């Protein structure tokens, strides 16, 4: 049972942190949404459609952030066999997939009025679609084995291999000609976006991040408890 010493301590801490994460997330969303709709100006070229940015960009950032977190956790699980790492990677996948899907869907809704098309097969959009497929593949692979440990190992390897897609997404707008605009926030010479637009964007981005933490805590607690249920069931079968 000492293997669960760590997860047990985690369960306790997670129980305390979770309501705070919820409160911070709701406060950030309330502030961010107010600023996005009332204090941020319309764009001089894109008009009011630019307000899609305040959900599109945070969703896209989180789609990549979650994948990076999942790949790192998978590496830790493969190398050090830390019991929490596997659980964290598994709990991250559906959240990252949801964010990636949202980035694609809101991008489509933004692309239609601005580019005149819902979709183009250019580098940024295609690499983002591949990211969504990687998440789906990861989740499918996890459930594809009768032996849970083998499923976890196979999906962890997939998560690591798929990580090469992350720099491709990031630099796709520089390496290839694309309809998608280049980076305007994370750049060497500082953001090229006005503070009135930058602040609501950053507040929404942090709100998306704390939302991820919130859901992650819930899902990790669920996974750890599910492991305990499995152990009790085995006990019932063998000891009963």
């Amino acid at each position: 049972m000492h293997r669960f010493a760590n997860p047990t301590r985690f369960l306790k801490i997670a129980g305390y942190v979770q309501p705070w994460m919820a409160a911070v997330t709701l406060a950030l969303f309330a502030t961010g949404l107010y600023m996005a709709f009332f204090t941020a100006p319309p764009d001089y070229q894109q008009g009011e459609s630019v307000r899609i940015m305040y959900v599109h960009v945070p969703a896209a950032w989180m789609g990549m952030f979650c994948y990076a977190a999942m790949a790192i956790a998978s590496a830790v699980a493969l190398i050090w066999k830390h019991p929490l790492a596997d659980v964290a990677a598994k709990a991250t996948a559906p959240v990252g997939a949801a964010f990636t899907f949202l980035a694609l869907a809101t991008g489509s809704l933004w692309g239609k009025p601005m580019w005149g098309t819902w979709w183009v097969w250019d580098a940024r959009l295609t690499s983002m679609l591949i990211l969504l497929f990687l998440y789906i593949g990861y989740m499918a692979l996890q459930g594809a084995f009768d032996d849970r440990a083998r499923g976890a190992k196979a999906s962890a390897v997939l998560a690591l291999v798929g990580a090469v897609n992350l720099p491709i997404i990031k630099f796709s707008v520089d390496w290839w000609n694309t309809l998608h605009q280049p980076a305007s926030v994370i750049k060497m010479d500082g953001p090229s976006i006005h503070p009135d637009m930058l602040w609501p964007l950053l507040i929404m981005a942090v709100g998306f991040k704390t939302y991820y933490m919130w859901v992650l805590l819930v899902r990790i607690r669920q996974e750890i408890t599910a492991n305990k249920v499995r152990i009790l069931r085995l006990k019932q079968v063998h000891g009963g």
Partner: protein
Amino acid sequence: MAEFLSMGGYGAYVWPSYGLTAVIMVVLLITSLRGLKTTESTFQRLKAETGPRTPRAPSSENTEEAANGDEA
């Protein structure tokens, strides 16, 4: 108000973006919370079933084991 909702003619794109984001994030949160609740109640039920019936020390009575069970 109508002017706000029309979003300078882009309302048909802006509002679905926010609506879809809200729906997906709320659904993901609720299913996660519900999953935790269900698993926790299954765990408590199994613990109550198995806990008292697995005496470790051969000499002890069940009453001693019960003290182990209520720490959570």
